[in-house]
């Protein structure tokens, strides 16, 4: 092949204690779609952010069309023809879709930009309401806006980080055909996607990243799924655990069938749960994003809630865990509910607090940890030590600040802390997002163990496989409403149809 349009060589980047990239290479050729695979946390996003000018590498070289360049900002990247569609939305909520589309684009008139947007929309099937404020859009519309924004700038290289997570299958297919068209037009496309089969279907070439390093690059036609998965996981879980719980594979790899979770949903059959105590119930509950939700959670069961992101699950999690009151309806929940929030950084932990203080955040509510006035730091410190040891949190000491830990270790702290509450119910919201294989199977194991001890568990997840594998009963959330899945529908296809049947969230 000729010279690549973009070449990344030996890229290294460290964040605090975490070596996110430790020598990653990536070549992107014009005219091809390049799939980048790797466990979550392997470094794919960081690598893409380096390409997009969002993150500067500590060392390593970037070449565009054969000449060495520095990408100090997204502006630099755009100037080189490199466009990044982010995993996390980077739209301005207070502005309209149209304003967001033309933001940062100089030299186009407003009408020209709108006309171009409409033409693109027509061609790609990515339709968005141009005059709506982004804050009013659902996640699907936001994602479509992000993609359009990148397409409008006519990049030579388009990089997409998880673009399909919130799209329906039809929309994802539409996007993939756009990407293939782009490649046919002589552009380079690079893609990270949630689902392995999607990447395999659309890519011409593949690169596997593991633990911050590129371990394999090959044309799609020359590798098997089994080989790819083996490369993604490496010699085994031990490696990754050894490097300090450094982020790793998500449940995607569970989908591929590489990880065996002890136990399994089949352990608790539906018949045995009848007659168990109802621990929590919601009747006719309304909130910002919830409509007439009815739910009953029994002791010892794992109640799975599936759904595409942004359909009201977060409101549901906050109400079930007693962090929020419904605007209407009846919520009968235990006085104390353990809660694993989706957003570890913002809601689960205080980044500036050390481990002891983060443990105290929840445990100080318990009567056995002191009076109403004083903080029994000695006891709490001991408890933090116990959690650090028992849950194998990799941290120099309990005086380490939470922000210095890797995602998996942060999650261990949260789980250890919440379990110590000994609450009759646990609400877990996407508890394995961004965790490596080891950490994921660890979390799953803890959930199953807890259920067997009689704790009522609500598992809210956008990962359908996770829900199907662990949950005794499954419901689906679409547009703020909840639909219970009958036993016969409890298959990937059945639940998937329900998830998409209501379409994705639009409010």
């Amino acid at each position: 092949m000729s010279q690549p349009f973009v070449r990344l060589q030996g890229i290294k980047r460290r964040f605090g204690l975490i070596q996110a990239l430790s020598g990653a290479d990536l070549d992107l050729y014009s005219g091809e779609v390049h799939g980048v695979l790797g466990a979550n946390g392997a470094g794919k996003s960081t690598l893409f952010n380096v390409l997009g000018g969002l993150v500067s590498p500590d060392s390593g070289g970037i070449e565009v069309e054969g000449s060495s360049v520095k990408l100090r900002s997204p502006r630099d990247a755009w100037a080189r023809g490199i466009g990044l569609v982010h995993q996390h939305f980077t739209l301005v909520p207070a502005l309209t879709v149209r304003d967001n589309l033309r933001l940062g684009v100089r030299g186009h008139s407003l009408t020209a930009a709108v006309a171009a947007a409409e033409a693109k929309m027509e061609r790609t099937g990515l339709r968005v309401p141009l005059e709506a404020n982004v804050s009013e859009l659902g996640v699907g519309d936001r994602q479509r806006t992000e993609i359009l924004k990148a397409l409008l700038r006519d990049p030579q290289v388009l990089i997409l980080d998880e673009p399909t997570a919130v799209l329906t299958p039809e929309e994802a297919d539409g996007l993939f055909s756009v990407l293939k068209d782009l490649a046919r037009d002589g552009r380079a496309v690079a893609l990270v996607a949630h689902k392995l089969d999607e990447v395999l279907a659309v890519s011409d070439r593949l690169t596997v990243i593991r633990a911050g390093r590129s371990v394999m690059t090959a044309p799609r036609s020359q590798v098997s799924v089994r080989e790819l998965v083996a490369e993604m996981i490496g010699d085994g879980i031990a490696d990754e655990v050894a490097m300090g719980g450094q982020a790793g594979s998500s449940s995607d790899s569970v989908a591929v069938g590489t990880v065996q979770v002890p136990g399994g949903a089949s352990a608790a059959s539906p018949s045995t749960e009848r007659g168990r105590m109802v621990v929590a119930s919601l009747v006719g509950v309304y909130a910002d994003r919830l409509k007439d939700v009815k739910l009953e959670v029994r002791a010892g069961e794992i109640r799975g809630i599936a759904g595409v992101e942004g359909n009201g699950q977060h409101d549901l999690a906050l109400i079930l865990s007693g962090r929020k009151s419904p605007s209407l309806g009846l919520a009968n929940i235990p006085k104390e509910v353990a809660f694993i929030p989706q957003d570890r950084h913002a809601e689960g932990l205080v980044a500036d607090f050390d481990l002891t203080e983060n443990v105290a955040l929840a445990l100080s509510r318990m009567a056995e940890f002191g009076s109403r006035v004083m903080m029994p730091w000695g006891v709490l410190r001991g408890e933090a030590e116990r959690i650090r040891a028992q849950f194998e949190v990799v941290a120099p000491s309990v005086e380490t600040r939470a922000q210095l830990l890797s995602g998996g270790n942060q999650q261990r702290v949260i789980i250890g802390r919440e379990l110590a509450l000994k609450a009759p119910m646990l609400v877990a919201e996407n508890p394995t997002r961004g965790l490596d294989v080891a950490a994921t199977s660890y979390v799953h194991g803890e959930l199953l163990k807890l259920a067997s001890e009689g704790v009522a568990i609500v598992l809210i997840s956008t990962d359908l496989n996770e829900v199907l594998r662990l949950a005794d009963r499954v419901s689906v959330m679409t547009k703020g409403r909840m639909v219970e899945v009958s036993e016969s529908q409890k298959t990937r296809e059945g639940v998937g149809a329900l998830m998409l049947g209501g379409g994705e969230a639009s409010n």
Partner: protein
Amino acid sequence: MSQVELALFLESAVRLGIPLALAAMGETITERSGVINIGIEGSIIAGALGGSLGAIAFGGAGLGVAFGALTGLLVAFVFAVFAIGLGADQIITGTAVTIGGLGMTGALYQVVFGVNGMELSVPMLAPAAIPWLSDIPVIGSALFAQAPTAYFAYVMAPLAWYVLFKTAWGLELRATGEAPVAAEAAGVRVRAVRFSATLFGGAMAGIAGAHLALAHAGAFAENMSAGKGFIAIAVVALGRWNPIIVLFAALFFGGASALQFLLQALGFDLAYQIFLAFPYILTLAALAGWVGKSQAPAALALPWEPNR
């Protein structure tokens, strides 16, 4: 109340409101970029001294105003280096710049004019009545027989509004203040935008200060800004971060300040200090009445660091 009294009231309302309007309009642009600069008090006092010195040195009030704008901008530059360049806390930096601006002008004034502050004789910025318009009964003389800086404020309000809401630069500015990460990702130079918006705010505050010295007092006096920078920040909120509403909010505050003359003329016997406090109380009440949290730029006062 006679028409004469009303006209006098309106005239003083506009006169007291104009420096606030100038400073608040600049601060509106600054805050729209996500920067709250409480150091504009320092820019105002610097503009007052710079305006006076400039007017003396160049022998003309017009050049004095320009020099005042430049000194105000310089003070804002110091703020910007720390708050934007280094990402230091905006409130603290603003406090330091205000303290330093007040001290520096006081000290320089005494250096130049002696410890007792020999009375300065400064070329005044004379009111310039606009033909026809100033003849409109009651409001004519109030609005159109003011110093030229007042007309500058009238022109700046729609101009700033247009730039803010109708141009690509205004879009980038608003995006920067709402979501700097998103703006950067779209290719906007967040720091450059914030820097220039802050310098513009400083220059406007400098003009406000020059107006105080050249159009109101005809002299520089230590601490003559008297907290106008702080009030301007309240006026920005009252004006919902919209330059045109900000102009009216400043005139509203000016009117509240001018009430003392009107009420005294009408025979109300209230203590002078209560009249002085009145505009602040009224502003608090007005804020409580119609400004919501959602109006402020979402990233206001949050430091931002590029390229982690």
